[in-house]
């Protein structure tokens, strides 16, 4: 008797639950309608062509939202930075509105592959591996390695590193570069940037090498330290990226980059966003690429 009745209770309970569940589904339907409203009309390949973006009236651009001075949000809640300057110009010339998407280094490629954004403008370094998955535009910036050291024992060339200890962060280009090109230089490796800078500050190492943009910004904030070598090793370029095969949009961006050289656009963007961080000692031409020409 008890088994049967228990089952009946469960049924009773179950049917009331079903009603609640269908109510829940109705609620769910409401929210998925909202989702449909923001859905992107896409063609067979999934990405939106230049014409489709113009037609929709809104371009979706992925930028960094917490990586000053490239992409960040100011105290008024507005997107700012070197990448955002270029993005804003593209938006103006497209004649559309913009929807910003806050990206992180790791999800820039997935955002393009899943066609969640039209363009990524987030300090995106061009690599062969990435170029297999997304299409890069002409470059608008370049990055090399820099070496920062105390003014009292300034390292101005790699030769100055003889008999000294160079700090690097594991997994960075700097580590690979010095291991391959200058195996004689003694390296001291750290996992975190903060640890590496602390090691330089308290003298555990004689100099620190990583991307020149990074050490230039740090040296400006830390008196007594100077970037003695501001461009070393392979030149990495930074470019905009679109979904693989989105030629119309890529063509538009490339044409923009070429045309903007006439007004020295990227140098102006540098003066506005990067110069306050890097200071006046840095030659903008070590970082800025105008007209896509290296």
């Amino acid at each position, binding site marked *: *008797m*008890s088994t049967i*009745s*228990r*089952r*009946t*209770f*469960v049924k*009773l*309970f*179950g049917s009331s*639950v*079903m009603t*609640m*569940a269908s*109510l*829940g589904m109705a*609620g*769910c339907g409401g*929210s*998925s309608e*909202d*989702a449909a409203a*923001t*859905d*992107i009309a*896409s063609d067979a390949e*999934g990405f939106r062509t230049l014409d489709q973006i113009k037609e929709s009236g809104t371009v979706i651009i*992925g930028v960094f*939202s*917490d*990586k*000053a001075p490239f992409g*960040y*949000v*100011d*105290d*008024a*809640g507005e997107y700012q930075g070197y990448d955002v300057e270029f993005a804003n110009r593209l938006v103006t010339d497209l004649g559309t509105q913009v929807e910003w*998407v*806050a*990206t*992180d280094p*790791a*999800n820039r490629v*997935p*955002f393009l*592959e*899943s*066609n*969640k954004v039209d363009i990524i403008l987030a300090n995106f370094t061009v690599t062969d591996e990435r170029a297999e998955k997304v299409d890069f535009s002409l470059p608008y910036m370049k990055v090399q390695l820099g070496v920062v050291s105390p003014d009292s024992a300034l390292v101005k060339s790699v030769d100055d590193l003889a008999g000294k200890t160079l700090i690097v962060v594991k997994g960075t280009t700097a580590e690979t570069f010095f291991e391959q090109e200058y195996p004689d230089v003694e390296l001291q490796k750290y996992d975190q940037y903060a640890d590496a800078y602390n090691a330089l500050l308290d003298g555990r190492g004689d100099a620190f090498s990583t991307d020149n943009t990074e050490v230039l910004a740090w040296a400006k*904030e830390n008196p007594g330290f100077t970037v003695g070598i501001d461009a070393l090793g392979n030149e990495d370029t930074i470019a905009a990226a679109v979904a693989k095969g989105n030629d119309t949009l890529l063509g538009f961006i490339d044409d923009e980059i070429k045309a903007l050289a006439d007004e020295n656009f990227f140098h102006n963007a540098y003066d506005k966003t990067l110069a306050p*961080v890097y200071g006046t000692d840095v030659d903008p031409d070590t970082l800025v690429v105008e007209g896509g020409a290296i």
Partner: protein
Amino acid sequence: MGAEFLLQGATIKRLLVGLGVTLRISLVSVALSIPFGVLMGVLFTRKNRMLQVVLRAYLNFIRVMPQLVLLYVVFFGSATTLGLNFSGEVASIIVFTLWGAAELGDLVRAALESIPRSQYDSSYVLGLTQRQTFLRVILPQALSRLLPPSVNLVTRIVKTTSLCMLIGVVEVVRVGQQIIDYYRFDYPQGALWTYATLALLYFCICWPLSMLSKWLEGRNTR
């Protein structure tokens, strides 16, 4: 103090907007988890071998998968493979509902199974109908055992929504990071103050829930 930047510009307002996003994702997910979770719990107590295997597999799948992986699968994976283009917030709600329903289902199962058979039998002996037994004897007991762990589940969901920023959702922790980054040079101690503010905001939401859970538990063992 070094914390005055929190009062500048739209900082406070932006944090509150971010908190609103956090709460919206959490509350909608919880609201959807309740019917699905209860349904799942009730199905769990059915003596159907097949159903048990399926539900157990679902529960374990959700438990072993990191929420971040689920977010990536639903947000990016569904767009590339199924052509379903969810916004970041909708994808988040789907993932937290899948998770909440699985965990709540297990809690409901445990609560229903914890009611001893003698409770049913005693009710019949006293002449209560099936309906009366369920509503007046079984349900109140199951509910009082179910509520405290469920409220704890809600606080876990609220805290875990910070992962949503990794699929582009600008929730409260992401807003905090943007603020830290903006004031990085002018206020080197800004990170500490911003994180303290974030902690306070989470505390204001989770502490009352935790108190509620404690109070319910106290009432339960009375």
